[in-house]
């Protein structure tokens, strides 16, 4: 990945080649079907939004894409090849993610967190590490430099030696993005990257996501903040109860009465659930 700061114009929505194609993904937990045959196509250089009320299955869908869950049915094609549902294979293929409830390595420094992200792109093994030959030193230095570069990129350059758990909330989210970027992804999956942020931090986050997109990485983002989604996304997918309700341009989705209903309807849903359990 080359970090380009001069932003070229955003590519047209369906201009790039298809990089990620998930089809018919189903995930069942016992009797509960959390994701019910969802299709998703992502093209290079695109930002795709994933919206839907709480419990709609968005995070579960991410987990299926990244191999944390083995989908009950369906397959994920990445860059022309079928992705096995193994997290490591997914990352190696070029898809990285962040988590809704931040999952940093809390007791490592920011820099070390990002260096862990480089793990899959480096290769020093036991003997190299023990004998510390030139290859080892070169790779360590390169890893460190790259990690620092990424921290600078997301705006955390000065916090590199601070412990992740001591960082403010917004910085932790950005650190998670830097860690994901360290795996050299072609597609980045962000699970509610602005949850709990103030408006200013949200703006910074969307700037960052644009910057990432402009550097050639496709982004799939789960969000509840509609303004954020409509400013950011080329395409939006709305999930409700595990199924795709609508897919289309932000304006299409925004004006779709079913989407509005789904969001308004959730209040009732929640009450129902509360009463029945």
């Amino acid at each position, binding site marked *: 990945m080359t970090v380009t700061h001069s932003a070229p114009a955003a590519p047209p929505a369906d201009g790039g080649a298809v990089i990620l194609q998930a089809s018919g993904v189903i995930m069942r937990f016992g009797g509960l079907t959390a994701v019910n045959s969802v299709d998703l196509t992502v093209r290079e250089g695109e930002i795709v939004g994933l919206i839907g009320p709480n419990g709609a299955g968005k995070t579960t869908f991410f987990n299926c894409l*990244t191999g*944390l869950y083995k989908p009950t049915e369906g397959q994920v094609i990445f860059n022309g090849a079928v992705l096995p549902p193994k*997290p*490591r294979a997914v*990352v*190696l293929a070029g898809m*990285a*993610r962040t*988590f809704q409830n931040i*999952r*940093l*390595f*809390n*007791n*490592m*420094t920011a820099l*070390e967190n990002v*260096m*862990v*992200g480089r*793990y*899959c792109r*480096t290769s*020093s*093994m*036991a003997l190299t*590490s*023990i004998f*510390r030959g030139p290859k*080892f030193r070169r*790779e*360590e230095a390169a*890893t460190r430099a790259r990690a620092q570069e990424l921290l600078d990129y997301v705006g955390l350059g000065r916090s590199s*030696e*601070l*412990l992740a*758990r*001591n960082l403010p909330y917004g910085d932790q989210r950005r650190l998670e993005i830097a*860690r*994901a970027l360290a*795996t050299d992804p072609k597609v980045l999956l962000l699970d509610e990257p602005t949850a709990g942020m103030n408006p200013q931090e949200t703006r910074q986050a969307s700037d960052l996501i644009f910057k990432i997109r402009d550097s050639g990485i496709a982004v799939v983002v789960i969000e509840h903040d509609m303004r954020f989604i409509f400013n950011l996304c080329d395409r939006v997918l709305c999930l409700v109860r595990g199924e795709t309700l609508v897919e289309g341009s932000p304006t299409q989705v925004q004006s779709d009465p079913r989407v509005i209903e789904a969001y308004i309807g959730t209040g009732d849903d929640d009450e129902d659930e509360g009463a029945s359990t």
Partner: protein
Amino acid sequence: MSTVSTPTQIAPTPGYHPSRIDGLREQHGRLAWLLVLTGLVVLAAGCFLSWSYDPEILGNLSISFNPGSLQLFMLTAAVLALVYALAYRGPLRGLGVWIDSAKALMVLGIGALGFMAITLAVVAVTSSGLINIDPGGWVSLVGSLVLAVGGSLLERRPTKDTLHAQLPAWVEIGTIVVLMAMLLFGAAYALGQTDGNIFGLFLVFVVAVAWSLFAAGFFTWLGIVAQRHRRVLMLGAFAVAFLFPFTQNGSDANMSIATQVLIFAATALGLNIVVGLAGLLDLGYIAFLGAGAYTAATLSTSAFATIGWKPPFLVVVLLGAIVAATLGLIIGTPTLRVSGDYLAIVTLAFGEIFRLSMSNLDGNNGPDLTHGPNGIPAIPDLQIGSFNFGDEHTILGFSLGRFANYYFVLLVLALVIITVFSRLNNSRIGRGWVAIREDEKAAEAMGVNVFGLKLFAFASGAFLAGMAGTVKAHQDVSVTPDQYVFLESAFLLAAVVLGGMGTVAGVFIGATILKLLPEKLRFISDYRLLIFGVLLVLMMRVRPEGIIASQRRQLEFHEEDEALAERIEEVHLEEEAQT
């Protein structure tokens, strides 16, 4: 603390105005300080008088103006107290800006009081009667009491953080060297004690002094210094370990203990890779040591060895390590599916399988590989070239016995293990292990090869233990299954846990505590296991990360502690700034 006596280097606290302290407290403070001075002078004076009527007790404490060793301890404590006192008020004020001398004095005073009380109690009990305590003993007891009281009455003043103290490099290196020398002589002295009481009192003294230095912030500073002069420290530690046998005049009694400690520590270090670095609990680790030992035994020239092939020892070492590592790989495979407590039980079961198999393979139940419960005795000493490890050798006029020979081999082995341990720790692999410990799912999602790294931890830990086992077989002369029971695994784990997870120094301390103390404190020998069990329970409540824990481990055990996290970050930043 005597080495930090260059107060000119340290600027006094800018914000400190004595005039602001009101007169009453000033007076009170001066009184306390005078108490401290009186106390330490009285304590020291007592040391020049006889403590005990009976010269046979606790070394010889009965000759006035010729202090015995216990009296010298208290003299040392008095001198240290003088340094603190003068740092509190007097010519060493510059030093006092950095160290919490009031607290240090209090701790030292209480420690000295405890020391004196135990000493006098021992004198009274062994010679049946308080009458046998000579006046000097009472004088010193009173002195230590006054010191303790004065110390606790002293006003505690805010101090600067020794973390940020900067001294010239030669002072820092000098400190390390002096400490190492003290370690060497302290260890030689302690091991030389055949009297459990003196040994115990020496421990009390060491703990009191160390605690007071800790209270003074000395160890914070030392930590940074150690970080800054890592090479010097390692070299120093190695020099101490290397020179130790030369202090023993060819006596094998202590060298035998020292080799036991060393082999135990080396094995525990291997376990620390598994537990401390990779965060996997292995309750059957002793099996790997056993695998190495049995390999060496069956391939040895013992008349009871069961395999005809007699390769040279270096080949045996490698083979033992490979056999153990293979077992490690097998034991590691379940990590793919099970984790946490389950894994611990799986390893425990593996350990038992190993032990039972070794005591079964006697020819009646399966092939005769191990001679069953009787094991393989009469394993000859190592012979490398013309150098026989069983013989006594003389080097530069120092005679070195059988155990000293093994000691040196084990030292080299320990060095290898330390190198492997710390290099793996500071590498891509080490980072991967930390990530797995912190959040396995997240690590996996970031592309860390979780299964591979766990397997590798098991295999490499086993490899190192296997190497140690091959030496152990020759040193112990015989190999039997009952040397490899679960309790031994528990002991190894305890060395790691008590000493400190993820650190080298911690494991050595843990190993020393667990192996040396029962040897020297014979009177506790029957209660050894009970103390061990209770210690584990208490440790998990009081300081689960161990005595010298890695900072990261400490954080992991105190997820809620914000202040600790801030503090460790501060230390880390200071270290980064230095290097």
